């Protein structure tokens, strides 16, 4: 029972941390983007204000069952996925529901949020939403291929389908997977550009032409909830990448306060640096059209993914 209590506490702690970190990163990115654009930009906590305001707005518009469910779906997907992500490697305070094969499970669950959004957007009947969803799903088809190839390469190389195991391997050998299989890493990294939907892959929600795309019919609390889900998802992706390729964070043998804080610190540094890659890529790139984006993902990233798989098959 003691174990279960700790797990429940850990789940709540994880969720709060994921939400806070995700939102803050968003705020920092807005600030940095502003600075790169030679202006001051909003304060770092702007996203929290936005969320607070959105949640305090009246929301009287109903678009049917899926319209109501979409944000909920997203947040459920986000929290569920979060439960399977190791936050700190083997730390007692941040337990997770790992099992053998959870990497494959995550692959499916991570699409779940987008699907919920797609269904909700479809129910609203707004043509802009429909177009946005089509574009979003097309783009997803684009980046999923290199991403899956990269993960398959890892699975083959280390003969495991558990995120926990992959992290443990890196911890034991001391070699990050980013160096163990650089091709798979590069493929996954390029795929992550699409995942975060920063420019140039932001045609899904292009405000000027699509009226923010899939979310165009969602305002107020719906949008706020979606925003929270998005923030959690951003944290999930970053943490997953850190654990898959950058050796994870935290020491599985020590769950003391100091070690935990150090682990969190390392996690934040690593995730932030990782996050800056798509953001930076976004600063300097204009927007791609959907077919350009797909061509991009099916070009170099996919090739790198295949090389990564071959590397895993033939050199290990």
């Amino acid at each position, binding site marked *: 029972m003691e174990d279960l209590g700790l797990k429940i506490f850990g789940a709540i702690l994880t969720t709060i941390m994921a939400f806070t970190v995700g939102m803050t990163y968003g705020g920092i990115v807005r600030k*940095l983007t502003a600075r790169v654009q030679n202006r001051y930009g909003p304060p770092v906590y702007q996203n929290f204000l936005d969320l607070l305001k959105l949640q305090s707005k009246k929301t009287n518009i109903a678009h049917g069952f899926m319209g109501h469910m979409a944000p909920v779906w997203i947040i459920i997907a986000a929290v569920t996925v979060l439960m399977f992500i190791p936050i700190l490697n083997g730390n007692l305070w941040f337990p997770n529901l790992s099992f053998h094969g959870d990497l494959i499970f995550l692959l499916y669950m991570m699409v779940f949020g987008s699907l919920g959004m797609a269904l909700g957007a479809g129910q609203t009947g707004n043509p802009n939403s429909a177009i946005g969803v089509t574009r979003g799903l097309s783009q997803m088809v684009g980046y999923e291929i290199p991403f899956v190839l990269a993960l398959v390469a890892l699975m083959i190389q280390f003969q495991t389908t558990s995120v926990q195991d992959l992290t443990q391997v890196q911890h034991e050998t001391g070699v990050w997977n980013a160096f163990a299989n650089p091709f798979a890493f590069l493929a996954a990294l390029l795929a992550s550009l699409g995942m975060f939907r920063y420019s140039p892959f932001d045609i899904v929600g292009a405000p000027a032409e699509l009226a923010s795309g899939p979310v165009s019919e969602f305002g107020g609390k719906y949008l706020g909830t979606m925003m929270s889900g998005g923030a959690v998802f951003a944290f999930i992706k970053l943490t997953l990448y850190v654990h898959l390729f950058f050796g994870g964070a935290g020491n599985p043998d020590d769950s003391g306060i100091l070690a935990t804080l150090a682990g969190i610190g390392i996690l934040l540094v690593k995730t932030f640096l990782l996050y800056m890659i798509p953001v930076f890529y976004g600063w300097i790139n204009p927007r791609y059209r959907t077919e350009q984006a797909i061509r991009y993902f099916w070009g170099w990233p996919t090739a790198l993914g295949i090389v990564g798989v071959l590397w895993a098959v033939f050199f290990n």
Partner: protein
Amino acid sequence: MSFIDLKGMLQPLGAVKQLFKKPHTIQYPYETNKASDNYRGLHFNDLDQCIGCGNCSTICQNDAIDMISLDNIDGKKGDSGLRPRIDNGRCCWCALCVDVCPTGSLNLTKDYIFVTDNPNDFLLTPGLDNPDAKDRLSYTCDMNTSLSLYDRVPMRELDGKERVKSFAEVVLGYSEEEARAEADRCISCGLCTEACPENMHIPEYINAIARGNDDDALRIIYDNNPLPEMCGKVCTRVCEDVCALQVRGEAVAIRWLKRYATETAPTVEMIKEIVDPKIEEPNGFSVGIVGAGPAGLTAAYYLALKGYDVTIYEAQAHAGGMIMYGIPKYRFPLESIDKQIQYMESIGVKIKYNTKVGKDITFDEIYTNNDAVFVGIGLQNPWNIGIKNEDSPGVISAIEYLKIINSDETYDVGKKVAVIGGGNVAIDGARVSARFGADVTILYRRRVEDMPADWEEIEGAEHEGINIVPQAIPTRIIKDEKTGKVIGIEYLKAKMVAEDGGRPRPVAIEGSETIYECDTVIGAIGQQADFDWLPENYKEDLIIERGKIQVNDLRQTGVTKIFAGGDSVKYGNSDAISAIADGFNAVKGIDKLLLK
């Protein structure tokens, strides 16, 4: 094309260095930006400088400017008392109002931020609501950028050397193009109409000239002035003193434009055809008029139009009064007067010449035979100069002198002439003398800029070689002991002493006696009315104070049946247009008295 474009891949990294630069954001509202030098922001109006001409309101394409009366601003002559108020809910800051402001009082400022939650806040009275904006003027209207035309179309004149040779008319008149161009300058504000004693419809007839409808212009003029030819030539034109354009530039040549309008109808028949006066059926009343001066003629004309039986009794052989005998012919030729008189007579005004009331006919007779009497006798008797040896031969008053000259008689002024006084009559006397080849000097007590005469007259005199000695107080006339004739005049130099609440007063400087040698001294320091012809019993009832008959608004005297006008009543200045106004108003009075 290389396989991997390394430069192309790394170049964008340069964007990162922006992170450490100072942003070039202006952190409004914590920092402010300076508006450009001629930014067109909210309006500012200098309320003291503004004359309320309403030109801004007229030009505004968005109907955004209203003229309203403000509490602390009263109208006066040359100021309508109204001030513009801008509806910022209409204004689009095109600044046309600024460009056409004749005084330059309306400007735009650098203030452009005005935010409110109340849509009724957008009415702004510039100057009143933002008095501190004066320091932040940006788009202003200077003389170069203004759309108003400040320069008068010059009037063609005879050359000074040419004109002293004869009594030919000095002013040549506007040609059609010149008149149209000059009329186009008018902004039709109407400030002049209030200044004009007769309240002529000045903007209307100038507009008619500008649009090429000279006939309409003449009709509008004849609506309340039957002597436009005279006014067009010798009017004192107080209207031009209050012209909105005169504040910064030259006034519209209202007088010359009127002259132009009258010149388009050179004969009596044409005047009659164009003006087409509507003469009403005789109403059975008769009015007697004493004196065929401007006042009497005006009263006669409008009374005749209204169907009265009008008779004028004139002592001289010519009608016109002071315009006939007091104004030299180079300013107002004889044929012009004759034309006007003929036109008067053609509509039924009867004039009895050489009929001096009190001598050829008694006033009682006129009084009893008519239903009303109008007295327009003018000022006939000159004031004395009031210095020693005034009665010597060679000393003459300007009025007498002009009368002699205008009656085609001769008067020998000799080689050198001194004229005392600074009014129009003095200048007339001087210029007439100059035409006889004399060397003329005007002695005036004050400075040249204080002279009551028209600046055009003064300039004309200077062009004709007349010497003006200002600040000179005559003390005595020197006469030759043997012949008794004038040989010179002695005067003291004066200095101007500022006086509280008045114009500077000349004070003689002791021991500065100067002698000017001359053959003739012409005195022109004012005239007074002659009431000798009036029976004593009327004199009391008429109430004559300080030489002037007291009348009410309708020019009615103490005696119900007697009306009076012209120079001899207390109303207005001593000029022709005031006399015309008196005549015009007396008609209203007579109408009221007789027709009720």
